[in-house]
């Protein structure tokens, strides 16, 4: 029901408040008095009166019925009384009396019987009811038992619930911990990615520096070219002034560069730097050159009197960024060239017992497999994986020629005794002979197996193959003249400086020396404990004076044998941590450099 609010009292009420109270109080008093006299006194009385009234109403019909029954009974009683009085009058007839008595007796017996039947029935009913009662009691017990079972189960379930909530909290704790760990790991990851991005930025910077270097090289080269052209132009000027007529004649005969160069060379015979050879002038020019410089083009340019046995490592350098496959000392100086899977040929100088990096030749498109200096020491022939062979000038920025044609990895490239030729051996089962003046292949010799190394003598080319044979080829007739079998795959070949003996290294962990003059019979075999040929490209070499033979082993140890005695002279270990790929001996005999798969180059000597 809504709350009842009452009319607001207007301002005039407050004025009349004091006097208002009097009449209001009077009214209130009067109302209370009225209620007292009229209501309260009669309330309870009337209520109880009405209750009594109701009750009497209930009992009224009952009363009536009882009265009626009473009247009936009373009237029956009266009737029976009447019967009795009527029989009294016939007392004198004993027989009739007897009859009447008998009648009464039978009636009573009948009622007796009826009552007995009733008693029996009631007894049966009682038994049935008792049975039912027992049944109900047993059911009750059963239910109680079930109930207690249920209560127990309830308790058990409560406990299990508690346990599970405990476990839940444990799991939740573990989860929280794991979440924390996850967060810390994520932070670490974030840090690492940041470092990574910084590192990539650094690399990018390095690369840009390298690119700048290349750009500088290019610029230098361009400038060198320009300088050359300017120099040639300048030279031209010098020549044409005194002998103008001759110049014209010559220019009529042979154009441009060759004549000029010839002239230029003649006038500047001391400086033999211009390396561009022409076909016409080759032999004459060379003869002259040889005389002026005392270079021996047929034989070795240096003669080494004695090689010194290396005993200790002077320096270890991390020379490249990847495996180093080849190393070679220059034929005239202490310059070392190394090359490997990172496609760069690095030139080093040995100065005061240390390796100093000089320049690097970076134009190869794939990893370097072998390096060869020419007898003048100014050209390098580098063979690479992708079938290309690069001819470099030592100080140049770009290769002079790129000899392509092989379809597989070129394993060896050597200068032939005629400078303008080179011979290469490759996994595509060919040997190719190249003309270096034009940069083109002149001959191809098909071989039956992968060629792993090549050696060129005056008119002979010797190649080592995977099918465990060493083959000799006549380069004029391109025919195989001899075959020497060995016990394992040939990995490298090397000849002594006087071209008398051939050294082969093979995968059965042995080195064989073959005497070339005594019709190619195997003279000596070198073995050692612990010497294992580590790869298909392991190089073994003679020392420059031919007295020692050295090779690197798979575990990084350098082995040196004495050729004359056949015994192991030294095994130098501890510097390389991976398989040694190549060894090279300086032409002065002082230094040995070995390079390995672990990017390291070690300089050895005996002091």
């Amino acid at each position, binding site marked *: *029901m*809504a*709350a*009842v*609010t*009452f*009319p*607001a*009292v*207007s301002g*005039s009420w407050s004025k*009349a408040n004091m*006097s*208002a109270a*009097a*009449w*209001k109080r*009077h*009214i*209130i008093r*009067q*109302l*209370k*008095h*009225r*209620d007292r*006299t*009229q*209501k309260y*006194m*009669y*309330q309870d*009385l*009337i209520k109880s*009166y*009405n209750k009594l*009234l109701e009750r009497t*109403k209930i009992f009224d019909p009952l009363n009536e019925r009882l009265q009626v029954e009473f009247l009936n009974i009373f009237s029956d009683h009266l009737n029976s009384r009447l019967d009795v009085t009527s029989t009294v009058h016939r007392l004198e007839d004993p027989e009739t009396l007897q009859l009447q008595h008998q009648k009464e007796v039978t009636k009573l017996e009948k009622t007796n019987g009826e009552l007995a039947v009733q008693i029996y029935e009631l007894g049966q009913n009682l038994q049935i009811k008792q049975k039912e009662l027992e049944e109900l009691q047993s059911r009750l017990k059963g239910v109680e038992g079930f109930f207690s079972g249920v209560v127990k189960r309830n308790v058990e379930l409560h406990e299990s619930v508690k346990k599970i909530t405990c476990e839940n909290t444990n799991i939740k704790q573990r989860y929280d911990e794991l979440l924390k760990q996850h967060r810390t790991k994520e932070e670490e990851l974030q840090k690492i990615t940041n470092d990574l991005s910084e590192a990539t930025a650094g690399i990018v910077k390095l690369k840009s520096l390298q690119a700048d270097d290349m750009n500088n090289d290019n610029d230098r080269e361009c400038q060198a070219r320009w300088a050359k052209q300017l120099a040639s132009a300048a030279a031209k000027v010098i020549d044409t002034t005194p002998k103008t007529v001759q110049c014209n004649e010559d220019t009529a005969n042979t154009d441009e560069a060759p004549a000029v160069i010839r002239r230029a060379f003649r006038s500047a015979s001391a400086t033999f730097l211009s390396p561009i050879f022409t076909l016409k002038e080759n032999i004459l020019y060379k003869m002259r050159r040889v005389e002026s410089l005392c270079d021996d083009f047929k034989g070795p340019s240096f003669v080494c009197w004695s090689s010194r046995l290396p005993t200790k490592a002077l320096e270890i350098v991390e020379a490249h960024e990847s495996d180093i496959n080849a190393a070679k000392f220059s034929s005239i100086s202490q310059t070392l060239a190394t090359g490997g899977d990172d496609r760069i040929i690095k030139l080093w100088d040995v100065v005061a017992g240390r390796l100093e990096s000089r320049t690097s030749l970076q134009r190869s498109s794939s990893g370097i497999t072998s390096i060869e200096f020419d007898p003048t020491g100014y050209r390098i022939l580098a063979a690479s994986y992708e079938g290309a062979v690069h001819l470099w000038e030592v100080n140049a920025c770009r290769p002079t020629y790129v000899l392509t044609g092989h379809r597989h990895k070129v394993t060896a490239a050597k200068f032939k005794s005629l400078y303008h030729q080179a011979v290469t051996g490759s996994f595509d089962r060919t040997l190719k002979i190249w003309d270096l003046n034009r940069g083109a292949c002149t001959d191809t010799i098909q071989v039956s197996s992968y060629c792993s190394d090549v050696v060129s003598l005056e008119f002979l080319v010797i190649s080592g193959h995977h099918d465990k044979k060493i083959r000799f080829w006549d380069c004029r007739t391109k025919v195989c003249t001899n075959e020497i079998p060995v016990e394992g795959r040939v990995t490298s070949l090397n000849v002594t400086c006087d071209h008398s003996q051939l050294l082969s290294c093979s995968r059965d962990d042995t080195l064989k020396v073959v005497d070339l003059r005594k019709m190619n019979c195997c003279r000596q075999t070198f073995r050692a404990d612990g010497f294992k040929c580590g790869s298909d490209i392991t190089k073994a070499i003679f020392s420059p004076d031919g007295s020692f033979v050295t090779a690197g082993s798979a575990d990084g140890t350098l082995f040196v044998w004495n050729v004359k005695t056949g015994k192991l002279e030294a095994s130098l270990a501890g510097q390389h941590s991976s398989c040694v790929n190549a060894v090279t001996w300086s032409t002065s005999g002082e230094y040995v450099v070995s390079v390995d798969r672990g990017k390291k180059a070690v300089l050895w000597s005996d002091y």
Partner: protein
Amino acid sequence: MTDDKDVLRDVWYGRIPTCFTLYQDEVTEREAEPYYLLLPRISYLTLVTDKVKKHFLKVMKPEDVGEMWFEYEGTPLKWHYPIGLLFDLHASNTALPWNIIVHFKNFPEAELLHCLYKDTIEAYFMSCIKEADALKHKSQVINEMQKKDHKQLWMGLQNDKFDQFWAINRKLMEYPAEDLGFRYIPFRIYQVSFNIHVPILLQANLAGVASSERPFIQKLFRPVDADGQLQSLGDLLKDVFPIALTPEDGEKKFQVMIHGIEPLLETPMQWLSEHLSYPDNFLHISVIPQPTD
């Protein structure tokens, strides 16, 4: 304000102990016992006497039963007057309980209205409320109310629910703030005649009093006079029924009774109308002779 609420509650819950006796000439199967009942002052006879009828019908044969009507000391009681008014007018100074005689035959057509259905009572009740509001607010408040509010007023009275009734009735007791009270006060002044059996036709020297055409006095009366002063009960009587007032030097001849009490003559009419009205929003005032003892 709680005093005012108490007043309203006391007015609503006022009761009169009554004893209903069957008229001895009525044909009964057995002797009928009297029926006692506490009658609410603010209700109407035919609304609250269902139990009485049931009680007496138990002892009567159905063919003898006509419409029930009541009389007190020979006077047929008009059902459309509130019970409190009837008691104050006829039996206020007699011994309690109030003895009413119940008749089932010989309905006095000339004096009483028929009341066969509850709807009759509802219609009459609502018409009284509307008339009162016409006087108080020019019928604005009652006309703004919805049908359900009217119904609620009637249901509150029928079921004796104080809160239900006053939830709506309070709206009828409000007046705009700029006025000090209602427009006119709804009141009726009743008087019983000296002649016991004839409640109508008084002597001519009692001017302006009830006659058969006008059983009560009802006139327009403003609660606030021209000066802004609140009018009191005395002012009303002076205005409308000066006989009832005690003369300066004489003795008190009449009692001015509302709801069984005599309010002081200085009681403001506005307050009286707000708090001492019957549920039909009228102030039913009885003027009865002063009892001598």
